[in-house]
């Protein structure tokens, strides 16, 4: 069931570049903008956030499979073949198997979600994603009783992902969510940005987007989704567990051991952009706080 959640961010005041892209988006007949327009009043209440433009979103990426510099993914990701693409769905599901991406997409309803995106490195953007709810994919696979977590895996293909030739982290990249987090209507499987197919450097052809968690939880170029009853290993946690926890919810009150998480730099604001306070659960507190009721967020960081 799509559209369980609606935006409070809009295309209001977007830069000329993205307005241009939005017009193309309307021409392409992709819904979402109309809805966003209706919600305009609320967006103003939410602090008048606006999406970053296409160039910013697609040229400033952490995707270590293509190199550790922010501009490496944009430089090297064109080598990645994303068609054909299959996703292996396995573990505690009724319908395990290798699913062609096209077959999955034909069963899903794609919609636009304008989300805040907060990196663990204390910078942030706003991205207009296109995608479908992960819950719909999991329901298609059939969740078996006893499944408590969802594990994800990125493609391992060093010949096309040159960063994988260096042991920066333990490849392939893996991530995980608790089942209730995975089923939350905010949790998106993104296949597009600004109504266009998601560029390789942003995690083509399909990636996870969990807007209330630090960006590294939103695993890119997914080839495997596994339902399990145990907390799955996650890449950054395996590397330095004291710095990167399994939950990694955006939280201004829990600092990264090497830097503060109280504030963030907004990308795209130029040389003199003001820092802004980081919001608990990245501003999605009303939507997700109930998932963590009674949990010590400092211990379960």
């Amino acid at each position, binding site marked *: 069931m799509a559209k369980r959640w609606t935006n409070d961010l809009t295309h209001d005041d977007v830069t000329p570049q993205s307005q241009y892209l939005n017009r193309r988006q309307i021409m392409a007949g992709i819904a979402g903008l109309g809805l966003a327009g209706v919600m305009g009043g609320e967006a103003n209440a939410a602090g008048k956030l606006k999406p970053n433009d296409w160039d910013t979103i697609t040229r400033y990426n952490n995707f270590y499979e293509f190199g550790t510099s*922010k501009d490496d993914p944009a430089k090297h990701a064109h080598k990645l073949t994303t068609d054909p693409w299959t996703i292996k769905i396995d573990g505690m599901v009724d319908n395990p198997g290798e699913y062609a991406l096209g077959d999955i997409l034909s069963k899903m309803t794609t919609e636009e979600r304008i989300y805040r995106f907060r990196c663990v490195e204390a*910078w942030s953007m706003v991205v207009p994603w296109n995608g479908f709810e992960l819950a719909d994919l999991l329901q298609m696979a059939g969740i078996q009783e006893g499944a408590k977590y969802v594990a994800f895996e990125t493609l391992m293909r060093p010949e096309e992902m040159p960063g994988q030739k260096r042991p920066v*982290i333990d490849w392939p990249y893996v991530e995980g969510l608790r089942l209730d987090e995975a089923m939350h209507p905010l949790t998106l499987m993104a296949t597009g940005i600004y109504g266009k197919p998601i560029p390789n450097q942003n995690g083509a052809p399909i990636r996870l987007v969990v807007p209330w968690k630090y960006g590294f939880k939103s695993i890119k170029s997914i080839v495997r989704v596994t339902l399990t009853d145990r907390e799955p290993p996650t890449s950054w946690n395996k*590397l330095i567990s004291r710095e990167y926890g399994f939950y990694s919810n955006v939280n201004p009150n829990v600092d990264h051991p*090497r830097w503060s998480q*109280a504030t963030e*730099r907004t990308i795209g604001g130029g*040389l003199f952009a003001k820092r802004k306070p980081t919001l608990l659960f990245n501003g999605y507190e009303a939507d997700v706080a109930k998932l963590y009721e009674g949990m010590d967020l400092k211990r379960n960081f």
Partner: protein
Amino acid sequence: MIAYLNQAAKKLPTWPLYVVGALYPAWLLWQGLTGGLGVDPVKEMEHALGEAGLQLLIAGLCITPLRRHAGVNLLRFRRAIGLLAFTYICLHLLVWLVLDVQIASQILADILKRPYVTIGMAGFVLLIPLAVTSNNLSIRRLGRTWHRLHKLTYAATLLGALHFVMLVKGFQIEPLIYMGVTVCVLALRIRPRAFRKVA
């Protein structure tokens, strides 16, 4: 070849180093203002200045081994190299304070609480007395003490390289190369005789 190089080095003026050195931060600022540094100009500028500062510190540490082991004498240029290193690191710090962190209370907290910031800061503090005593008068007045004092560069460069190693995410080669080169140029200072004594 080496004699020719030394002759040429003697004739070259040192002031162009200061001019070229001043152009780089100006160019960075211009690029940052006009979009040439990409969508995150603050980090780009901060990293570029820090890295250039570390490179210049290492370059300054190469002067003595070059003279001792290769017979190339570039001593005349060491002051300019050292002062430029100090200037870049000051600017690196300034960008971090004013454009990056911005908030005074957070700056103080970072210096005290974040080991990589503490270490970078310590390296910077060690450089201050060196910059202050980089004039001819100080060299004359301080005599042997000047030489001993300026050995603080060794510690400052090691701290700078360590600062870089500590701030990156994951296992990355580049900062380790800087650390390796720093250790090498310092190791080249160990004299064989002293070596034997220790052994």
